[in-house]
């Protein structure tokens, strides 16, 4: 009797070991697949012997040439532009998104349902075409080309109210009884928000800041309209995109890799540090719609 139990236990253990081994193998393979492109970018960014695409990965000659070339190009300016945009957008967009989502989660007013439905419908239009119009509006405001940075910030922030879903979902999970208790104690609605809700909403605030900060680094279609051929107004994506065009790829391919590394580093570090909040944010809010 004791023996059979022991055996079954052994069998279970064995099957668990097998399945765990299998899982490890899958995870290792996946990690390799996930990492290869990034490793390739990093390796190629250190290649000195040539600047174009080649059929091998490991450089024959290592050096900082590509990074030095970056330093001597307009990349600095693009980087600074993007960084400023990302920083300002992170702050303002968070304020707007929080206003929007908190309101829609906590208040019940006459036009609330209509408003939410209206925004849902708005979101179904492909944004691609409205870019040319937004570009013309910004141009009339004088916020294109060399002034693209404030222009881009304006557009990113102004339309950010549409992205309230995730944080509204999060606010919905905070019990309303908390608000009511505070209201009974004589707090105004504004005080409820700043004193009670916001401290509880730390994960979603950080999540919103993080996503708002990461967005501007990747925009190249609209940012390209707004900078309109003026280097001083470009962000990294627009500037670096031209390096992979036919007339430049031969000279700039490894520089693109180096630029990619420089762009990826701060965003990745930030993301890794705040990953915990990101997970809490998405899971707390994203699934509720």
């Amino acid at each position, binding site marked *: 009797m004791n023996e059979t139990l022991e055996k079954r236990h052994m069998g279970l253990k064995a099957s668990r070991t097998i399945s765990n081994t299998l899982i490890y193998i899958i995870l290792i393979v996946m990690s390799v697949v996930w990492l290869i492109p990034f490793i390739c970018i990093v390796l190629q960014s250190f290649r000195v012997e040539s600047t174009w695409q080649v059929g091998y990965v490991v450089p024959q000659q290592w050096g900082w040439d590509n990074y030095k070339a970056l330093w001597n190009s307009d990349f600095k300016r693009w980087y600074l532009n993007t960084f400023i945009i990302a920083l300002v957008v992170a702050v303002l967009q968070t304020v707007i998104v929080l206003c929007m989502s908190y309101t829609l989660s906590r208040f019940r007013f006459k036009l609330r349902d209509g408003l939410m439905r209206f925004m849902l419908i708005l979101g179904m239009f492909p944004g691609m075409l409205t870019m040319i119009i937004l570009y013309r509006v910004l141009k009339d405001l004088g916020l294109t080309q060399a002034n693209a940075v404030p222009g881009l910030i304006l557009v990113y922030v102004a339309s950010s109210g549409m992205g309230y879903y995730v944080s509204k979902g999060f606010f919905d999970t905070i019990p309303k009884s908390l608000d009511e208790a505070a209201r009974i104690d004589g707090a105004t609605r504004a005080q409820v928000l700043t004193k009670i809700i916001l401290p509880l909403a730390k994960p979603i605030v950080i999540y919103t800041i993080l996503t708002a900060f990461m967005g501007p680094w990747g925009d190249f279609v609209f940012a390209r309209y707004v900078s309109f051929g003026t280097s001083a107004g470009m962000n990294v994506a627009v500037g670096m995109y*031209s390096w992979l065009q036919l007339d430049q790829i031969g000279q700039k391919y490894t520089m693109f890799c180096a630029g990619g590394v420089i762009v990826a580093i701060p965003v990745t570090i930030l993301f890794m540090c705040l990953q915990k909040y990101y997970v809490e944010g998405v899971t707390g809010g994203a699934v509720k719609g």
Partner: protein
Amino acid sequence: MKKALAMLLALAMVFALAACGGSTAPAEQPAADKPAEQPAEQPAASTGGELAGTYDITVWCADAIVDLTKKQIEDFNASNEDGIVFNATVEAVGEGDAATQMITDVEAGGDIFCFAQDQFARLVQAGALSKLGVQASQTVSEANDAGVVAAASIGGELYAYPLTSDNGYFMYYDKSVIPEEDLDSLEKLVADCEAAGKYFAMETDTSAWYIASFFFGTGCVSEWETDADGAFVSVKDTFNSPEGLVAVKGMKKLVDSDYYLSSSDGAGFDSGCAIVVTGTWAYETVKGILGDNLGATDLPSFEVDGKEYHMGSFNGCKLMGVKPQTDAVKAAALHRLAQYLSGEKGQMERFNAVAWGPSNLVDQADPAVQANPALAALLQQNQYSVPQGQIHGSWWDIAKVIGTDVENATDEAGLQAALDNYYASISALFNMSEEEKTAWSVIGGICGTSWDTDFPMTAAGDNVFESEVLELKAGEELKVRQGASWDVNYGADGTIGGPNVVVDADGSYIVRLTIDGEVGTIELIAQ
């Protein structure tokens, strides 16, 4: 309180509106007559003194020549005797990109910009190029080779300054792989590549520019006609013909090879290519990879049914354009600069810096230019090339499909189908339904259009056609035509092809056409 939201909303909008719209006063311009009358008399030679001043301008050019162009503009500032000073911002905007950007928004574009020839007609049509003055036209036509001058002209008038005459392609090869004696035969070259396990790269999957090589080799043509505004009106295209079939058979020989690669990237030599068909711009890259093994020569011949056909090519150029200006003084100064940058000295400097092949006749004769291997190969290929005139923008999209079609075809019927498909799409560009062919319309320098817009007419009885109500101004001219073409058109005297109808007085009119046999009477009926 209830209103706060609405108020804030409205106020915010007011400020937005005031900021954007308020300052824009509606332009009151006298109505345009027919566009751009040619000056009758030779212009009085301007002394240039009235051009003195400082101008803030933007120049768009390829990344490779940004620094050079900055220096050239400084040279211009220092050397010109008219007191013109340009305060220029030079931006790196690629030649393909420049045209797309200009068409998106002409106003925001560079005052002077460089572009490839295939964008020319599109730019004229978009109103992004200002015409050259009489003197400038004369100087430029005399100084540059004839093909390039034709490429920068529409309706016999120059709209841009030639920068290079090297936008053609030829063949780079790796001397260590390809034996000299095989260079004239496509079949042998393909066999050499297969034997060596190396690629033969020619961009026939995605670029009509390269595909045309085979067709020109068998004597096919694709010639396009534009009107004076750069709009395309007709085409003579023989790609769908017995010669065209020979061409795709030759192409099939290349693309069926396991070692064929659709690419025109000179860096391909670093990843397994032995032959790359591309242009002079790849020279530095290829030189860097192959070193002394670099070979450059004209394209080979291919054999179909026992007959040899030497592969042809496009022979094109890069151009420099000046954006239309409202201020005549600035326009004249900009043209002065463009002429300087594209002149003999400018082109030679560009050749020395980045090895762009000059279009200037004096520069072309320079020994240094003739000694450049890439340009020499281009020159060799030029015997078989076709000057790239004005080609409809959609042609590139339509013709590039031949590449993938031919690759997928399994037999001769498949090849023929590729040509049929091509021909159908080409003809569709100008085709109209029967209804559209017989419809009448009013056209003229009316309602803000300049002989480029048809105002439809509808039947108002047997052989009577009427337009909608049109706002016409005294002195404006118009005609009535059929099928949006000038084959059948009526004017003031009722005969086909008669003189323009001139409007007597401002007012709202219906234009009525009454046809009686050959006579078409046009009446303007005031409303």
